[in-house]
């Protein structure tokens, strides 16, 4: 039989998981929106409209070029910030927005007002999420993309979309030569095997 204390503990745990967990997950799940909001409210940034963006996003979600499953881009202009405090404020905003599952990969800070912040995290199902925030003088861009590394590797080997090759066809002649070399080596190594 469960004691009153145990029942109370179970109820508290249940309440915690029901109400607190989704809030916590939500707080860390909207990194992109939080950073966009930070730029908008803190620096009075004006959002630049990108025509046909929705169409581009839809096309990418269908075609998935270079392994890019989805992406979002928000561009701002007329940012009003203090060069002295910008990096500190941005670092704090990034820390608050990105949870522990995100890894900070790159940070560039220049006194001229140029800032770059890049974060990355595992997105399951062979995918990774990459978030990039760049601020240059009075402009800023927030970019988020979900990439399939295996598809990216395939694209790097054979860059084509809808069967249309994107490289200039001048792919280094090194590879075939090397394969010939390796063929010769393997043939040589195979010879003694035949003797045996």
């Amino acid at each position, binding site marked *: 039989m469960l004691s009153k204390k145990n029942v109370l503990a179970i109820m508290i745990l249940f309440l915690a998981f029901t109400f607190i967990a989704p809030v916590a997950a939500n707080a860390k799940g909207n990194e992109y929106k939080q950073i966009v909001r930070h730029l908008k409210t803190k620096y009075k940034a004006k959002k630049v409209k990108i025509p046909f963006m929705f169409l581009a996003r839809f096309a990418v979600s269908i075609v998935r070029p270079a392994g890019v499953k989805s992406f979002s881009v928000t561009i701002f202009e007329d940012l009003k910030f203090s060069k002295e405090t910008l990096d500190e404020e941005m670092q704090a905003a990034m820390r608050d927005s990105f949870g522990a599952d995100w890894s900070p990969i790159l940070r560039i800070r220049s006194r001229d007002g140029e800032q770059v912040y890049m974060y990355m*995290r595992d997105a399951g199902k062979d995918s990774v999420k990459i978030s990039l925030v760049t601020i240059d003088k009075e402009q800023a861009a927030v970019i988020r993309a979900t990439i399939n590394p295996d598809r990216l590797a395939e694209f790097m080997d054979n860059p084509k979309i809808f069967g249309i090759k994107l490289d200039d066809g001048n792919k280094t002649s*090194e590879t075939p030569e*090397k394969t010939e070399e390796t063929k010769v080596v393997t043939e040589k190594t195979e010879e003694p095997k035949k003797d045996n």
Partner: protein
Amino acid sequence: MKSFIKQISKIALLAVFVLLPSAASAQDARLRFEKLNGLETKARDVVEVNIEGKLLDLARRVMTKSKDADAQKVSQAIKDLKGIYVRVYNFENENEYNPSDVEEIRNQLTAPGWEKLANVRSKKNNQKVDVYTMFTGDVMSGLAVVVSESKSIALVNVIGPIDIDLLMELSGKMNIPKIDIDTNK
């Protein structure tokens, strides 16, 4: 119930004693850059790169899948790497940073395990370059490069086994800088 708790505690203690030394040795080659945080406000430009875990995995996966022979070699070279950390601080004027900040990093490299591979001292720009390596047996398990000049500091810390021969073979290819080392004895 008490004996069960005792058993669990014994297992936990054993796990701590078994796992702690291995975790510590894996972290040996990692330099503590936190001491340089004070330079952030003084520097004109700051570059911070942390490549570890997931990103290294991603690079490995991309390179392994590639059919390019050099990419395959890069994948081989980074297959056991644990992390690459870079810090660059550029200053507006000379002597804007305290040399003791960099000395603190150099002092970390006097710890057992680190060996000085090369050092360069030049009066021009008061340049000091130090290259340190850490070996675990015959395998290089860490690399540190400390470059300080009158107006800049650059630190590179690589953790994990590094195949120098493979790195030499790849130098000048795939955006890897050309390394000219005379291998003739």
